[in-house]
């Protein structure tokens, strides 16, 4: 299913922070993981991901470090900071409230239509 771009872009930082909650990842892994967890719904472009990651780093939500992977290639891993974890909680709460509100409106519309 193709989603409208504006729907995805607003929540992208939330999704990226959520991915890092379970462990440190590098950019390529994040894109693959996002596709896997969303059943191929979120196909994030790398050109969107890296500026987003760098802006999250600027805000102090993530830190980056280089580490050589088993393949012998050096990767830049991103790590969720304590500040990033708090921001993630706030964003999750806001998103859940928003999703519930949208759900209620959509549900209410359906009831009226059926009345």
């Amino acid at each position, binding site marked *: 299913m193709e989603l409208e771009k504006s729907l995805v872009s607003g929540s992208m930082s939330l999704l990226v922070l959520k991915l890092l909650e379970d462990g*440190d990842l590098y*950019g*390529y892994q994040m894109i693959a993981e996002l596709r896997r967890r969303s059943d191929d719904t979120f196909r994030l*472009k*790398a*050109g*969107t991901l*890296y*500026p987003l990651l*760098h*802006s999250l*780093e*600027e805000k*102090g939500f993530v*830190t*980056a*470090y*280089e*580490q*050589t992977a088993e393949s012998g*290639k*050096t*990767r*830049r*891993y991103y*790590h969720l*900071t*304590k*500040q990033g974890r708090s921001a993630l909680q706030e964003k999750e709460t806001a998103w859940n409230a928003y999703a519930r509100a949208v759900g209620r409106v959509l549900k209410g519309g359906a009831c009226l239509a059926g009345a």
Partner: protein
Amino acid sequence: MPERKTIAAYLEAVQGQIRWKRARPLLVRELERHLEDQRDDFLKEGKAPDEAERLAVEDMGDPVTVGTELDRIHRPRPQWGLLGLTIVLAAVGVFLRVLFRRPYFRQDLVLMRALASLGLGTAAMLGMYFLDVSRLVRHARALYIGTLVMTVPLLRFVYPTYSFSLVSALYPLAYVLWLYSFRGKGWKGLLLTILGGMPLAAVCCLIPSASGLFILLFSGLAATLYAAGRDWFGVGRWKGVGAVLAVAFGLLAFLFLKGYLNSFLLRVMIALRPELEKEHRGYMGWALHMFWEDVPPLRSVGGEAAMPVNAGARLFGGGQELRPIDFSHDFLPASMAVAWGWIPLLVLLAALTILLLWMLVKGLRQSYLPGHFVVLAVVLTLGFQTLFSAALNFGFVLFSASLPLVVGNFQTVVDMALIGLALSVFRGNSIAREGPGRPIPQRKRLRIKFEYQ
């Protein structure tokens, strides 16, 4: 616009949008690795090499948009405020050095040398300001050894004032760079870090430079405690702090057993109560106490100063052959207070303190950990110099110390270079990156401040 289909062409297009040259290699390298991973996956799916590369590039998105976005995030952060404040303080120093010169020195020569120090200092500060600190920390051990090897022979041939300035300014930084290189190296790393301080301390004893030694010991201890408190060596936070404190107390016990501590404590006692030995070792402190009794909060300009340069001999009248106090150089702040009152001196000290605290707070707030250590070394060095100089000028005469940016032409150049180095950390923070390995966990800033204040 023609579509770019190779990785090299794509990266070149991205790079073209990033204006900060220093940021380009770092940003492009990450994108390049991603494109290579993507291309390799397409190859595994059975795509032809050219097609795999084209698809990888297309998947990345528009290079101009990507480059523009990265350019927006990664810009140098100019530190004009701190640079300006440093130059203003150094200019005040020039003014004071000319005004309170020794009477037999020619004003035009003193002025020329002071202005030259301001010019050279500004050049040195800007030179260090544009330096890439990550390169410095990459060669941390080489720089430590280089500093040691370079300064040892210099001490034999260089004028002592220059040796004191060089040693007291460069050794804490060299030690901190040495410390930085032992990240995650365990107990061996901690031990080697502490051992690394010993040759530096030995040179300070050989000069001899008591202020250099104490600045090195105090800043070295503070930096090592800071590192251990962040589990820099990977031995556990409290174990590391405990070990550093144990070494510090062990050293004190050793000095006590050898009798060095007793003579030092005697010096401290004389510094606190100089009147007990006012005709011998306490003379300088006692004379300063006498002078301070006459210093008002503010003295009108043009009023007669109670303490002309080289005026010490008059305290005892003509009957005694005591050496006069040279109230220039290290005692320049006291001369200023005698001439204008103690409020202008406090304002000068407050301005220096604000500069250093501003740098410390900025340094500890930024995310680049090696930068913390560089800023810490600079602030501790200049902070202890300020503290020791203030103590000396207020009559607590333990050892000589020059007020940073104010006393000494050569010292001013070295101090400005150090400040430039600290400011380069803030300037390049957005592209400053950790070296290999997981980042050291961040601690609450308030606790860091509390421990080391």
